């Protein structure tokens, strides 16, 4: 009997079916847990899912490659999802055209500030090179951030976790900062939240108003495009500069 169970486990643990199903079940459970706890961004469903799945994998002695054989079917959809961001971008095209220059200037400044300040602080505190490269694209939406991280020589999976943390941090800090700087324009609030806290910030901006939400979606897309196009190009000279 015990031997049969071991055999069945050996079969399941190595098949893609188990870990694909497990990922979906754990995520659904995490959505429920997050809702029960009042929908706090600190306990985002993705963070809860990561903690539970890593726990299960460690307890069962399963390595990440075996898990990813199953989970890759979900992971693959990140590419098409990035392409799909063209639709919200298209739907906001009139607002983009009306405020094109202010949005571009502030977007460029904000995205550059996010990447450079994070990398500078971590560098001064003695972080590893690969940590710095994984940290640089952390403000933009995961599918883009992971692609940029890979291009820079960072670790895409570390970047994915840092992106999620940035989103949660942005949601916690934004309301206080908006009050401190006395920002009243919903367009400005939304754009800044989408730009610096991607999807998390966008979801929170929709709670302020529909206008804030639309501008957050725009900030998210613009930060993604600016970071994807400029970060890999501008970081090419960095290793030479610091002699790394």
């Amino acid at each position, binding site marked *: 009997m015990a031997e049969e169970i071991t055999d069945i486990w050996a079969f399941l643990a190595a098949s893609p079916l188990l870990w694909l199903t497990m990922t979906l079940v754990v995520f659904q459970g995490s959505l429920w847990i997050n809702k029960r706890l009042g929908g706090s961004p600190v306990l985002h469903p993705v963070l809860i899912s990561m903690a539970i799945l890593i726990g299960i994998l460690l307890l069962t002695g399963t390595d990440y490659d075996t898990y990813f054989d199953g989970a890759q079917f979900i992971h693959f959809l990140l590419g098409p999802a990035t392409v*799909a961001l063209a639709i919200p971008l298209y*739907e906001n095209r009139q607002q983009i055209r009306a405020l094109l220059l202010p949005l571009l200037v502030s977007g460029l400044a904000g995205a550059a500030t996010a*990447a450079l300040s994070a990398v500078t602080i971590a560098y001064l505190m003695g972080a590893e090179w690969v940590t710095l490269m994984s940290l640089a694209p952390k403000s933009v939406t995961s599918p883009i951030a992971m692609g940029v991280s890979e291009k820079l020589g960072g670790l895409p*999976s570390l970047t994915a976790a840092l992106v999620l943390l940035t989103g949660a941090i942005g949601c916690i800090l934004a309301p206080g900062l908006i009050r401190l700087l006395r920002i009243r324009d919903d367009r400005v609030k939304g754009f*800044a939240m989408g730009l610096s806290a991607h999807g998390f910030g966008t979801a929170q901006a929709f709670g302020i108003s529909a206008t804030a939400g639309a501008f957050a979606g725009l900030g998210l897309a613009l930060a993604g*495009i600016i970071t994807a196009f400029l970060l890999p190009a501008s970081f090419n000279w960095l290793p030479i500069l610091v002699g790394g």
Partner: protein
Amino acid sequence: MSSLITAIIILLTCQLAGEVIVLWLDLPFPGPVLGMLILFGALLIRGGVPEYLKQTTDTLLRHLALLFVPAGVGLMVHFGLVARDWAPILLGLVVSTVLALGVTMLILSRLIRLRSRRAEDG
């Protein structure tokens, strides 16, 4: 002909074109980002989003969070790095997020105010 399949073909073809062009021209940014710009350009030329494409992408983007989980679990491979670098990572994340929010909001609100003042003068 299924419109769901047409929508999937459109998304995958744009991504494929993006990936091929990035590899071909050795561009430094991710293929799907170029795929997004290709689709955006196509929508501008066509002058609207077809309903079936809107439905499929809405579904995909509504469940975007789920798609991050497999990569996020990969954090377990980097426990050593995170244990070593957790302090620079955390301080870098918090300070840079505050600065990015502040810089973006201050510049954008100044520029919008400047523009409306100029519109009143003119």
